[in-house]
């Protein structure tokens, strides 16, 4: 797992940690049911406090991204992945509707919207 905590970032440390684990699970970098590092190991690795790491794990568990088995460790929650992706997709839909509404209000055309989207995809090399 590749987690890098930035000291110059404005995002709180615990949020950075949580987001990066989440991304790793959603992108499949951490596979279904894979054992995550212990809280202490991850804290040592990232130089984040063990209290913060535990808080991140607790919240990830509450959100269904990981499952902790007492005495064995925390595992990426496999069954929920589809659900999680679906939830994300719903988010994308909502944001697109928002973008559409704002665009319509100032008269952006369908063509222009498409072009904007094309540029975004090209910029990320896809």
């Amino acid at each position, binding site marked *: 797992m590749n987690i890098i905590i930035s000291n110059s970032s404005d995002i709180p*440390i615990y949020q950075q940690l949580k987001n990066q684990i989440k991304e790793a699970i959603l992108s499949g970098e951490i596979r279904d049911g894979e054992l995550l590092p212990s809280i202490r190991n991850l804290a040592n690795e990232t*130089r984040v*406090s063990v209290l913060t790491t535990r808080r991140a794990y607790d919240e990830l568990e509450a959100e269904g991204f990981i499952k902790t088995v007492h005495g064995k460790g925390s595992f990426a929650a496999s069954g929920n992945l589809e659900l999680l992706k679906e939830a994300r997709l719903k988010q994308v839909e909502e944001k697109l509707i928002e973008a559409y509404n704002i665009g319509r209000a100032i008269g952006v055309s369908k063509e222009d919207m498409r072009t904007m989207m094309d540029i975004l995809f090209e910029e990320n090399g896809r």
Partner: protein
Amino acid sequence: MDYALEIKGLEKCYSKGNKVLKGIDIKIEEGIVAGFIGMNGAGKTTTIKSILGLVVPNAGEIKIFGKSFKENEKEIKNRIGIVFDNGYLYEDLKLSEMKQIFAAAYTKWDEDNYKKYIKNFNLNEKQKVKELSKGMKMKFSLALALSHHADLLIMDEPTSGLDPKIRKEFLDIIREFIIDVGKTVFFSTHITTDLDKIADQIIMLNAGEVIFNKDKDILIDEHALVKGDKTILTNDNRKWFVALEERGFSFEGLTNQRERVRQEMKQALCERPTIEDIMVAYMGR
């Protein structure tokens, strides 16, 4: 929650009317590395000596591993490892002799473990304590403190006066120690950069009182180092700062209301503080 150390209402006066500790409360969970900071004379060493029963407090309660220290002294001492800055080691003894005295005091002394540390630290047991350099002395103290399966490591300024390389080795040893479940570390230091690297929790003492006792990352997240043009300061927003230095045309200060400053002082630059920035700001109050 299991606590390795609980201190409640600890008070100590050495001379009449001069309270060194004014009723301090400290709680440290099991599995935590806790850093203890504050100016010289803030009461850190008195606190640590009270925990170890070397100083008799005037009031307060100390529990280690959930048990009263007074009633379980022997059992508790067996589970504590101690490292002091200016040793409790006998200068004229050889390391091997010093070790024998030390080992006899503990029921769970582990000779193999000790030998492993002596080898890793490149210590020569035939040398006398007084022949060791400062860094070597600290390593020897650590070898002794870590060789009887202690669950709680208490250290008073273990790294003061040591060079960066030895301090890094020290931090690596602590990291290795804390990996095992149920181990806890509590140590005082002036070298706050070490705490940036290793501490989970920071406890600051000032003039015998606990100023804060917090998760390190939360502490850093809720404070900000703010810089900007002096003209944006008002009587109102000056109050948001723990410490504020006003110069010719600029200012620099530490706020404990990060979000407020970010939203209402948009022209100012907010940076993430170090523990030293936070410590110095609170010391100046």
